[in-house]
């Protein structure tokens, strides 16, 4: 059966099933919607979305979403339903809907990986049937970052079945009659609607509370910045946030340093804060488009912390996790490195903002068994000290104090490196460079000591932090004479996997693409010549031919930051 004929079968089934709507058999949903007061929105959309005397617009008044969710809806209206909108008007409408038909911080938090574009393992624990129904085709994150009335959840299913008839066979409806002993004979999609209506209704305490007192965010000022850039390690610096003319708009000046190699970065950017807390920004180095990083962050309640992810790349695969902390006074951010072998001496740097200067040996305390030999350099953003761990220092983490202030994180003294963990444990890259962009995979290695019990992967293991390793690729032998390693791509000295070109490869049996799965191996070498290895599984697969990210426009090879030159 061809894919086209499957579609035809699905379309027939769809038309037959419309005659037996389940929604009509349920009790009427009396949830009050959210009235629309934005004239631009009404004028742009009322050709299809009728407005009643209470200001309710069909569909629009009965759902709440993230800015990305609304942007995606508007794009669909333009591409499929002939909505006519100027970009400026579309931006205003996304802003209005995100603020007035948005979701509260507590509602977004479980699904924030979706808007932060994280490629992570995540399971929807509340109902595996619902997860199966939805994630046959897309992330559950898209589902749990929305709120709708029951009628709206039903209409969402109907829209899916209209646009994608295959969804019936992929998960919406069971194949054939229910099992003779089944107690619940509903189709998966009907179970899903019942579940989603209960778990993600339009009206919630969280939204009622948040929307009642939501106000334009007040974020102007100096913020201390800390983060972790996968493959490159910790970053520390500052962010100057200035309010722009419009409420909720900001300009940023960012400066930070990579703790491992001292590379300094200066970026300028702009941001809009939606719904009073959802930061969406973009920053550049020297104004160069090639260096653009999108910023998706949450302003925490209390207005003292902003955190999230900055990202770039054809598949949003690059970029650091970032936390900003208000820095009206001294702020201590963290340490680098975070571990020290017993009997050794090293330079340890405490990073922060507005730190007191002129500090001496007595002002910094690394805990029992660790002596501060001398302060090498002390500035307002970092203090470097030469520290020595005694031979008999007890293994374990120490709280660190700088001028009486606790330093986040701990300095861990260890005697041996027992294992190397490679993250992500399971990575995925996508072939590209011929017709489609490459999807890179960045790996990094973290060292662990087994701790007092001498056993790996137990609660007392000591995390020794990011370490430098030698990277290599080994065959993951899945079939006889497996030869994926020769074709999939290469791993550079920084743990960045660069996939091979897309398209059929005439050199492979059956003209296979350069797909494959391999081990990514990290080898750490100790001072005594000892070696410890760790490894992760890497899938190298085909490109995505259709991209849904609402901000994405046509991107072809060579037009996105590749970061292969470092």
């Amino acid at each position, binding site marked *: 059966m061809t894919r086209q004929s499957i579609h035809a079968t699905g379309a027939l089934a769809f038309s037959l099933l419309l005659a037996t709507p389940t929604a009509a058999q349920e009790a009427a949903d009396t949830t009050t919607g959210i009235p629309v007061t934005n004239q631009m929105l009404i004028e742009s959309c009322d050709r299809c979305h009728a407005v009643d005397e209470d200001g309710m617009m069909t569909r629009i008044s009965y759902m709440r979403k993230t800015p990305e969710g609304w942007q995606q809806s508007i794009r669909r209206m333009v591409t499929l339903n002939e909505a006519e909108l100027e970009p400026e008007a579309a931006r205003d409408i996304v802003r209005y809907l995100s603020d007035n038909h948005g979701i509260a911080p507590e509602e977004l938090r479980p699904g924030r*990986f979706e808007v932060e574009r994280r*490629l992570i393992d995540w399971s929807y624990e509340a109902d595996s049937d619902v997860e199966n129904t939805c994630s046959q*085709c897309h992330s559950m994150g898209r589902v749990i970052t929305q709120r709708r009335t029951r009628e709206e959840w039903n209409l969402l299913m109907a829209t899916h079945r209209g646009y994608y008839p295959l969804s019936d066979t992929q998960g919406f409806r069971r194949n054939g009659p229910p099992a003779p002993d089944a107690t619940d004979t509903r189709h998966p999609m009907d179970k899903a609607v019942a579940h989603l209506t209960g778990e993600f209704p339009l009206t919630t305490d969280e939204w009622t509370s948040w929307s009642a007192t939501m106000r334009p965010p007040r974020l102007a000022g100096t913020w201390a910045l800390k983060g972790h850039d996968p493959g490159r390690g910790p970053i520390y610096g500052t962010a100057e946030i200035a309010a722009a003319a419009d409420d909720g708009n900001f300009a940023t000046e960012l400066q930070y340093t990579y703790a491992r190699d001292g590379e300094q970065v200066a970026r300028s950017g702009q941001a809009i804060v939606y719904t009073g807390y959802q930061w969406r920004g973009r920053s550049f180095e020297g104004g160069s488009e090639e260096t653009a990083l999108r910023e998706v962050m949450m302003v925490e309640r209390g207005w003292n912390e902003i955190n999230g992810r900055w990202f770039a790349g054809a598949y949003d695969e690059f970029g650091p996790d970032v936390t900003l902390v208000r820095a009206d006074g001294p702020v201590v951010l963290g340490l680098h490195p975070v571990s020290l072998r017993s009997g050794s001496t090293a330079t340890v740097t405490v990073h922060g903002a507005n730190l007191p200067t002129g500090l001496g040996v007595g002002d910094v305390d690394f805990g029992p068994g660790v002596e501060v030999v001398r302060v090498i350099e002390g500035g307002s953003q970092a203090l470097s000290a030469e520290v020595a761990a005694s031979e008999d220092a007890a293994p374990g983490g120490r709280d660190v104090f700088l001028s009486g202030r606790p330093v986040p994180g701990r300095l861990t003294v260890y005697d041996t490196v027992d294992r190397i963990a490679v993250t992500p444990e399971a990575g995925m890259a996508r072939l590209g460079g011929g017709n489609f962009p490459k999807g890179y995979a960045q790996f990094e290695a973290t060292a662990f000591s087994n701790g007092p019990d001498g056993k790996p992967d137990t609660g007392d293991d000591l995390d020794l932090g990011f370490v430098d390793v030698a990277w290599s690729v080994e065959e993951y032998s*899945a079939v006889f004479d497996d030869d994926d390693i020769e074709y999939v791509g290469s791993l550079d000295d920084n743990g960045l996997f660069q996939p091979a070109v897309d398209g*059929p490869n005439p050199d492979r049996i059956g003209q*296979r693409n350069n797909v494959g799965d391999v081990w990514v191996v990290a080898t750490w070498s100790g001072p005594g010549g000892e070696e410890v290895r760790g490894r992760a599984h890497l899938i190298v697969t085909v490109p995505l031919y259709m991209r849904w990210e609402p901000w994405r*426009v046509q991107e072809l090879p060579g037009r996105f930051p590749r970061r292969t030159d470092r």
Partner: protein
Amino acid sequence: MDHLKAINRKAQRIQEHVGAPGAAVPVPEVGPGGGPAASGVPPGADPGDMDVVGLESGPHIPLGCSLVFAPGWEVDSTGGTAGLCQPVERDLFDCHLACFWPAHVPDQLNHAPDWTGKCAAAQKDWRKIDLIFP
């Protein structure tokens, strides 16, 4: 395997393969206490002590990830890529039912009715396939 003797060709290949370098059999790679990489379990050591995280688990199947796509699977039912329909360009127009469709292709009902308009034979004209942004 020491007490089993391969009596047919397939069993013989398995036997050879398991003993070969790079075989997909997890082997401990660090000794207790983080000493030099050792091959095999030293005499007297408990094999459980040799567990190394990242080596003890099998292949990881990214189905259920936060970014799954369909109809397309990055891996086959065993967690590898050997069972994918290959090359993907051959599968774009006529899905093979004996293998896993690895590509999420645009729907040609609504979003991209002309997606393959420039591409009469995808395996030959694959450079003309568009990337769709609905």
